[in-house]
């Protein structure tokens, strides 16, 4: 798959939007401006962006509790997202969903999900709908190496293979399963083998390399649109932050995170270097992209803060359609 310079720049831009959004969200959370809990996607941006760059607007994704990145990568509006994090009436969910429940049906975003593995079956259903209608749409389910142990993965993998559904499983192998190393719970850490019994491809990809993720997804999308069925993409990465903000990370090996934060691993400088090396952008243009992303998120916070809280009477709205 050839990738134009414009596409590469756009991927870099989108990764920065996610990074800036997450850093801003973390700041708001630490200032006690957010309620409940929230989960940072920092360090994993290349997966959401690489995957969603290979999708059309009318393709579907299901996301996770760590969902801000997927939503932004698929085209979600940072203003409506930030307003949702701050519980405002102008938020994606009118202040009723919060961090873990942002959806934009018009963009094919079938929701973040508070249940680990909860989106897998929904994506399989959206894939079935695509086949049912014959509209050539595909569905992608993002989940992690903790969620891949859930039964619904195997239940739907069997059906997706059986019926050749246009479904792409994207396992973000971020090496953690909530407050533990994921490998503690994996009989075999080569997760591509989880596709083997169902006879569809399981492929490893460097989850910190946005171009590699994009290419792998492109192949899976082509296969799905051809009617050849599902693919499991295992994108290896590292969860830079804790499970939630405030996670003391006592279970993590000392110094390990520093490796993943260096310029060779962190997906943003990694892509930045590539853009410089290929003379697509100048150093000051890279900086401008970062600044622009931070500006967008700053404006999103201003929008959220100037938005009204939901009116009390909306408590009863939308229980039923």
């Amino acid at each position, binding site marked *: 798959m050839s990738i134009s310079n414009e596409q590469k720049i756009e991927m870099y831009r989108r990764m920065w939007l996610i990074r800036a959004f997450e850093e801003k969200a973390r700041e708001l959370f630490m200032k006690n401006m957010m309620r409940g809990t929230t989960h940072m996607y920092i360090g994993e941006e290349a997966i959401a962006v690489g995957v969603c760059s290979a999708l059309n607007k009318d393709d*579907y994704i*299901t996301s996770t509790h760590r969902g801000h990145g997927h939503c932004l990568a698929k085209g979600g509006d940072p203003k409506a997202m930030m307003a949702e994090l701050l519980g405002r009436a102008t*938020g*994606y*969910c*009118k*202040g*009723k*969903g919060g961090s873990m*429940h942002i*959806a*934009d*049906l018009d963009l094919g975003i*079938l*929701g973040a*999900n*508070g*249940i680990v593995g*909860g989106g*897998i*079956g*929904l*994506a*399989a*259903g*959206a*894939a*079935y*709908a695509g*086949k*049912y209608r014959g509209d050539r749409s595909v*569905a992608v389910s993002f989940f992690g190496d903790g969620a891949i142990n859930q*039964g*619904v993965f195997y*239940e*739907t993998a*069997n*059906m997706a293979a*059986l019926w050749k559904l246009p479904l792409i499983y994207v396992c973000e192998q971020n090496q953690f399963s909530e407050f533990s190393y994921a490998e503690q719970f994996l009989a075999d850490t080569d997760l591509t083998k989880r596709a083997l019994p169902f006879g569809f491809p399981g492929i490893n990809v460097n989850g910190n390399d946005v171009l590699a993720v994009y290419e792998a997804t492109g192949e899976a999308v082509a296969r799905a649109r051809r009617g050849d069925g599902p693919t499991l993409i295992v994108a290896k990465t590292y969860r830079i932050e804790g499970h939630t903000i405030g996670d003391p990370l006592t279970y993590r090996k000392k110094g390990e995170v520093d490796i993943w934060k260096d310029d060779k691993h962190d997906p943003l400088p990694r892509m930045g270097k590539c853009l410089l090396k290929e003379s697509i952008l100048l150093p000051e243009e890279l900086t401008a992209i970062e600044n622009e992303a931070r500006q967008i998120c700053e404006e999103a916070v201003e929008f959220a803060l100037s938005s009204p809280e939901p009116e009390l009477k909306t408590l009863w*709205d*939308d*229980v*039923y*359609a």
Partner: protein
Amino acid sequence: MAERILQYRKALNEALHEEMERDPNVFIMGEDVGLYGGPLKISEGLYERFGKMRALDTPIVEEGFVSMGVGAALVGLRPIAEIMYIDFSSLAIDPIVNQAAKACYMFGGKASVPLVIRTQGGAGRGNAAQHSQSLEAWYAHIPGLVVVQPSTPKDAKGLLKSAIRNNNPVVFIEHKLLYNTKGPVPEGEYLIPIGKAEVKRAGSDVTIVATSRMVLLALDAAEKLSKEGIEVEVVDPRTLNPLDMETIAESAKKTNRLVVVNEGVRTGGFAAEIVTRACEEVFDYLDGPIVRVTSEDVPMPYNETLELAAIPSEEKIIAAARSFFA
């Protein structure tokens, strides 16, 4: 409208045929619902008429296929997921309770899940503890779900058609001892509205609110009590959530005596909800304490004598109604 006598089973089958013919987005999925025609023959003829995509045989994976139903509904299809016994719905609690029921509210009204979960509840034919439960209270407890329990062939057809056209997730609970019952069903197109109770028998002395198969027991009990000079009004809520409390309250205000019959076990059962709401709304009209007739707080036993002792019966209902006049 002209009527004919139809089996409950056949009435449901007609509803499926008509709605699938009317709307190409409607499809049915579940275990043996396609080629075999359904373990209870409710989906007979759909596979032949509408093909395998729309009468989809699934593996035995309740969580898997129900969550697929939720996903398909989120993107605009109108799936009917058949769960062979309501007992098996425990395997699909996440898609029903955490996904389908929450999507509309949680996503700020921008999503809807027009999914029907068709399933079978109830005891009385020796299916024992894992195939005989009446779990309607579980689902009635969840805001965002509609819960329907038809007691007659006419209601079964009209309510199923309404459920399929409803934009919310509907848990549609049939009863294993009703499938072979017969009753008048209108010829041609009709709908029974969701959320509307029906007075199945008018009376002036006692109100019996009964759900699902309990309606039939209550009607039989009413005939016997009539001979003793006690005129019973039988109210069938038909929909448990949203509950038509208005019709129940109106009847209780008239008769001043209330019996509530539900096949679920006593503790935390749906009867408790009706009793509580009656206490809140019509307490001052009642001549005495409300009487509950429910299943005993035991897993359903296999042995016939034990099973019959565990579930409500005509005799227990008669005794409950008579207690007001002792």
